[in-house]
């Protein structure tokens, strides 16, 4: 038996008395588990899942407008006027109430953007209307569904992630709406639907990004979507309610219940993270 004269040290040059495969009892004492654990409340989880539901509601609303226009239940002029009014109110709310910047200098840029949208939409709508004449309706609906799914996947929900590509999501949504617009009765219908699409997929997310974390907004959107679907088709409404429940209620519940299985280990082997020192 050897005399252990020196205590075992955690380096390579001092432990000559010990055998090479010796494991000290201080092994892994620097291991820490779940250091940065954040307690997520149920409300936060539901609101986080609600971001996806919000976007889904927007899509449902847009499709409902299309169905109304296609079946002739609503006149395109009415839609145009109403949606323009809503857009104007939303714009003013965003600029004046929610943003602190001086809105004089951004007014010109915004007007220019609006002008581009309107002019291009109006000029190209006759072409867009006859674009898919010879393609069957089922193909069009399938393409639109596919494009909307891509829009949902790549949308920027405010979470930093590698898969987010806001331009791809916007382009997919516009592509899908052009596909739908080509099925309508007249170029003006197509123009109205296109304007609606721009308002829903380009302008509304900007406004809603200010309203993140608000349960009221979420609830209002879900209700509107359910009502819109109820007027269109009962089956779709039930399907939508199921999906919403799954996404907004079931998934956060699972997420919270399985938090206790979380086991992140940290230790001195992690990469050093350099923080800025604020002087």
């Amino acid at each position, binding site marked *: 038996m050897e005399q252990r004269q020196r205590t075992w040290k955690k380096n390579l040059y001092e432990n000559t008395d010990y055998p090479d495969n010796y494991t000290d009892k201080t092994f892994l004492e620097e291991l820490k588990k779940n250091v940065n654990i954040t307690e997520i409340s149920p409300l936060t989880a539901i609101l986080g899942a609600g971001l996806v539901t919000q976007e889904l509601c927007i899509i449902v609303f847009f499709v409902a407008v299309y169905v109304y226009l296609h079946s002739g239940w609503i006149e395109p002029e009415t839609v145009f006027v109403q949606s323009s009014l809503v857009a104007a109110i939303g714009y003013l709310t965003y600029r004046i109430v929610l943003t602190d910047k001086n809105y004089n200098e951004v007014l010109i840029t915004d007007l*220019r*953007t609006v002008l*581009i*949208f309107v002019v*291009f*939409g109006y000029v*190209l709508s006759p*072409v*867009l209307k*006859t*674009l*898919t*004449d*010879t*393609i069957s309706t089922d193909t069009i609906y399938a393409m639109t569904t596919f494009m909307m799914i891509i829009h949902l996947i790549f949308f920027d929900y405010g979470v930093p992630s590698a898969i987010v*590509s*806001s*331009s*791809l999501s*916007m*382009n997919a949504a*516009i*592509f899908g709406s*052009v*596909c739908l617009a080509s099925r309508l009765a007249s170029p003006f219908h197509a123009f109205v639907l296109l304007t609606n699409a*721009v308002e829903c997929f*380009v302008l509304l997310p900007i406004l809603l990004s200010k309203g993140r974390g608000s349960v009221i907004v979420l609830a209002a959107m879900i209700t509107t979507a359910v009502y819109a679907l109820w007027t269109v088709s009962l089956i779709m409404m039930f399907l939508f309610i199921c999906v919403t429940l799954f996404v907004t209620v079931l998934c956060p519940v699972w997420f919270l219940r399985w938090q206790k299985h979380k086991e992140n280990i940290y230790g001195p082997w992690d990469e050093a993270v350099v923080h800025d020192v604020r002087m």
Partner: protein
Amino acid sequence: METLLIFVPCALYNEEPGTLYGVVQESKEECVKAYFIIGKTEGRSRISEVEQCRIIGYYCKEDAPCSVSFGEKLDSVLLGLCDCEFILHKVLNGGDVVDMSKPCQTICIIYDHQKFILSELLLQSMDHSGLMYGDHFKMLASKLSTEVSFQDSSVCTFSSLIGKSLVSQQIIKLLLCIINILLRFITFVHPVLKYTTLESHLQIFLQSIIWVLQSCSCKKNLSVKVGNYIVAVIVDICSGMLILYWLSTITSSPSQLLLESGEVVVRTLRELLQWLMGIPAGLKLNYAFNNMLGQFFLYHINLWWTFLVVAKPLLEVTFYIFLCLGRLGLTFQASILADLLALVSLHIYCIYVYAARLYSLQVSGLVALWRLFLGQKHNPLRGRVDSCQYSPDQLFVGTLAFTILLFLLPTTFMYYIVFTTLRLVVVGLGGLLTRVRYILQCLPLYVSILWILQSATISSTVHLMVRFRETQGSLFLSVQPVCGSLWRTVQYCMPETVHPPPRVKWGNLLGNLVSGRLI
């Protein structure tokens, strides 16, 4: 251990004893030393006229080795005759007597002097092959040919007689003047007429005639290449006359035939366009766009047809001129036919250009907009595709344009395919006519007849046979120039002014077809 090659002319069989003269060549890398014995002379004075030739040995016929001293000669050969076979009595190499008992150290090669001089292709063919022993035969052939130019040639042919007479020289000079003037005139109008195949063919024809006349006046006799070309031209003209005669028996007015064929082409095209504007092959095309394109192309065809009808008298005059030129041979008729084909299919070419440009624009636009769809952009500075932050209105307009281009692509693509096929057919026919012209110009009729007769003038390789082998010592070989393969001989006899048509690059063609570049 050097190998010694000794080249002995077989004419020495019948000669009297005398001094041998020739050239010695040594190559250190291959350890070979070659003694080229060119000939025999009685006296010693004539040798200094011939460049690089010097006394190389002595030929004593049937006598026993005689006591001829070579004096200061370092390399020399003492040759004798015994039982109708050559024997080497003594060989000096660098002053030392060579021991001839070692097997295969001295190789004696007996060659036929006449045949080597007669062959016109030997030197040319030796340039192509790179054999080690080919160098020696090349050296031999070149030494023999330079030696012939110093001596009176014992070959006296009909062609050389004609070549040497004074009258023929003057005639040749006159013809050269006339043809030079013609050629200058053709180069003068070149910028105007450079798109017609007839003009380029005429240029090549005149250049070939100049080449023939110049080689005739230089060499004072007809070489095989020139003879081959003249035979090909004669065959050409005869077949041209035959075809013209046959054409005149079929139809009385060839220009009417041309106009009728033009009309058939136009009618077929119109029907094709009408078919495309409907629902061709069940494809789903955009109706409005399809209609617009179809009407546009139909308008073009009508324009072209009106032009043809209005210009009919002018066409008749030009056609008559063409008929006159066609008497010069079948190749001229082929080039005229190629020109007529281009003229008749001009509207196909126009429509093809429109369709190709539209298609290439659409494809490049689609590629760029697809990148915008994904949020990327081509970076010309780095030559790669990077992600890019676009503003919403750029994205909106870009997506709209992408949708439009994507849905209009099948229509454009269909027009492009149809007219590219037609254009490829026309280009293929033109290429076929060019190759027919090339084959007619290089028709190796004369050379093939010579090859069948195994004439000595077209021999291009050599054939070695073992002649006699002493039990100890030197090896005796005999060499004969023989004809090579027919293909090789034909290749050597191609006229120099005629160039083969350019090869088709299939990879390039495919790339151009896919991206819509013009063919």
